[in-house]
């Protein structure tokens, strides 16, 4: 055969920089699903008028799961999982309550909650990277451990503490009349925007996707995979700490037995939003949509007067359907 002896490494004339906007539908997929489900459930009579209060309540109910799920999005994209979220939220809320009970000022208590969450994330990461445990196992262990610590430091009793107005962050109808939603909701949305940017425009975001897509490639490219995993789990831990603070604000006390099983809601939000447990795939906006969807469904079921078990049955299948639809979409585009 003949070969062109045209050198390959020489610079060539400039070509237009191509970019594709065709993936719009893919990006919007979580929303379309969200709208569809919302419309479907709204179609069931009776139809009370949609009030602001209604939306405000759902938004506040989205908050705790939503904040924790944004951190979980990083973990799941990197191919990991964190089952200890519920326990870590309880521990953070107890820690915040204890700090306030000691008479420490609010900013310090906030710091304590965040630091507790971050420490939980760090410990998870150390177990996963240093002991090379599968994340599922490591966090299954810390799920029990953090819960135990929360009970230990609170003597297994809810810790009442002055809230310094924290409960105002999570009131469905904000105290500040000019705000349409509670400050906590705004905080969640603001963090959402920030983390969308982190995922998309930072080295950490790219590394997270790369590790989840193919850890061997990441290693080959000189990425210090364990270190990046530590960053990811600590970042997620910070979000968990914040969620714990919100949990404290909701209850106005630090309850060591709160948020049992919440990790499953958090994981479900990420998965409904397009995250893949195999890693390499996930969307921050999708996660928030997923968290909102679950809160909406719960609220709608309450409005309809359906018992709790119906909610559980429905939410369970929303997860199944969301993932099934996603799989089907992937198969179709792969062909």
């Amino acid at each position, binding site marked *: 055969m003949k070969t062109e002896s045209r050198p*390959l490494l020489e610079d060539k004339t400039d070509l237009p920089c*191509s970019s*594709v906007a065709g993936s719009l539908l893919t990006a919007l997929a979580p929303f379309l699903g969200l709208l569809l489900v919302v419309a479907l459930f709204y179609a069931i009579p009776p139809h009370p008028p949609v009030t602001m209060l209604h939306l405000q309540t759902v938004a506040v109910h989205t908050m705790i799961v939503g904040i924790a799920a944004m951190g979980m999005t990083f973990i799941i994209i990197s191919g990991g999982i964190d089952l200890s979220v519920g326990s870590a939220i309880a521990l953070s809320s107890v820690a915040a309550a204890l700090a306030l009970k000691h008479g420490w000022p609010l900013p310090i208590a906030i710091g304590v909650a965040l630091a507790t969450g971050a420490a939980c994330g760090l410990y998870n990461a150390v177990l996963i990277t240093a002991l090379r445990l599968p994340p599922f196992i490591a966090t299954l262990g810390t799920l029990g451990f953090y819960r135990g610590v929360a009970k230990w430091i609170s003597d297994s009793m809810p810790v009442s503490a002055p809230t310094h107005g924290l409960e105002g962050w999570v009131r469905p109808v904000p105290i500040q009349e000019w705000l349409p939603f509670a400050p906590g909701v705004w905080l969640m949305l603001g963090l959402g925007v920030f983390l969308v940017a982190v995922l998309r425009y930072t080295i950490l975001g790219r590394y997270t996707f790369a590790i989840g897509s193919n850890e061997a490639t990441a290693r080959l*490219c000189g990425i210090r995979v364990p270190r990046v995993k530590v960053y990811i789990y600590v970042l997620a831990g910070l979000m968990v700490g914040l969620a714990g603070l919100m949990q404290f604000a909701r209850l106005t006390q630090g309850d060591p037995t709160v948020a049992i099983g919440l990790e499953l809601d958090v994981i479900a939000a990420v998965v409904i939003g397009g995250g893949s447990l195999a890693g390499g795939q996930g969307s921050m906006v999708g996660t928030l949509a997923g968290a909102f969807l679950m809160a909406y469904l719960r609220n709608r079921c309450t409005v309809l007067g359906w018992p709790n078990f119906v909610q559980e049955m429905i939410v369970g299948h929303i997860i199944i359907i969301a993932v099934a639809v996603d799989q089907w979409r992937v198969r179709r585009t792969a062909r």
Partner: protein
Amino acid sequence: MGALHTDTPRLEMRGVCKRFGATVALAGVDLTVPAGEVHALVGENGAGKSTLMKVLSGALRPDASEMWLDGRPFTPSDPLAARAAGVAMIYQELNLAPHLTVEQNVTLGIEQHTAGLIHRSALRRRIAETLERLNRPDIRPDVPVRRLSPGERQLVEIARALMTDARVLVMDEPTSSLGLADIEQLFGVIERLRAGGVAIVYISHFLEEVQRVAQRYTVLRDGRNVGSGLIGDVTLTRLVELMIGRRLEQMFPRVPHQLGEPVLRIEGLCGRRAPLDADLTLHRGEILGLAGLVGAGRTELLRAIFGLEAVRRGTVRVANYSGGKQTPARRLAQGVGLLAEDRQTEGLALSRSIADNVMLSRLSSFARWGWINLRTMRRATTEWIRRLDIRARSTDQRVRELSGGNQQKAALARLLHHDVDVLLLDEPTRGIDVASKAQVYQLIGELAARGKAILMVSSYIPELIGICDRIAVMHRGRLGTPRPADEWTEHAIIAAAASGKEAAA
């Protein structure tokens, strides 16, 4: 087929065809093996041996074929059906459950034949008989398989095949993980089985072994029969010629380049399994080829240099850097890059974009405070897409959607973008089309002309001879002395790879 059969052959395969997409893996292959014969199936990597055996074992369905077992039509729908019909495979990687005992492994999958109740005493007796048949009654059935040596594990695997009354036994590179004593023992077993009437298909790269153990041979090349006959009638040289077939074409663009100062020095490098005591000096502007069989330790050598695999002893010195524990990150910083052998599982993050893949090792050059400038990153990627002639829709296209050749160029682009001085290339042209191959050769030549040093592993000998300045052969972990490419012939390389002895051509 030249041989005469007075009897019905144990196994007869005729006109086996199999395509994978546009690639023709088997284009009408015939294979006939009578009972009581060891039949060697030889050919270079990718000649179609494995595909043919997968068809035989029911793991692959052929596009066209006729097969008979003892004169009866044989069309296995899956591996289980083939096993039930008496065709057993012994793979290169052993398929044993390490935590189960010898007995459990040997009877795995055939327990249910005893109508719900496991007749242990009857089975035990058969196991004992089988081990006796293998001349190893001393292997205890209640020992977990993980406590056995590699050679004994192989025998357990054979025992499993015999338990289902295998009439045809396929052994794929059975000696590649065995020591000398185990190999001798295996040959003894093979001879006993053969004498007992089993038909054995023996696949091996080690031609001397083939000459010892087999009676007849079939050579495959590019999915076709290119020769068969009695092993006694053929010389090793002739076998090699049949395997290579065509003469070396001039498809290798030569870019003039000059040898510079040494840039990579390896002394006494020992890995976990391989390499064993490797010494090597690589110069700027040099293309050094590593030949050898699959499993000879070439990949391990590259990975040990790059810091991806444990180094037991020895040193790797890059230019003027030295010392310290070596990691891929540090090697990349020193200007050493590795192109992984397997693009799919290691080389590329398939679900990510071209831009992400090409830039992954040097993202920080587009970033300030950790925030990436996506525009400059895309622009740089576009530049590489253009230079390397990668056929892609955009920089954001997923790598999964590219063809093999374009994927490989993207993987190479990463090393080029990182601007490494030493390129460790593991099978850089495997599984890519001929046009892309020529472009990769051209690229390697240009890199050498720019003073880069290239250490390249390839199982395709013509390309080694075609583009390398020096070639070294690895055999069972040992690295031979590099010699100028024009002192090597394909014969000499294959002979050295198969025997470890380097006869001058």
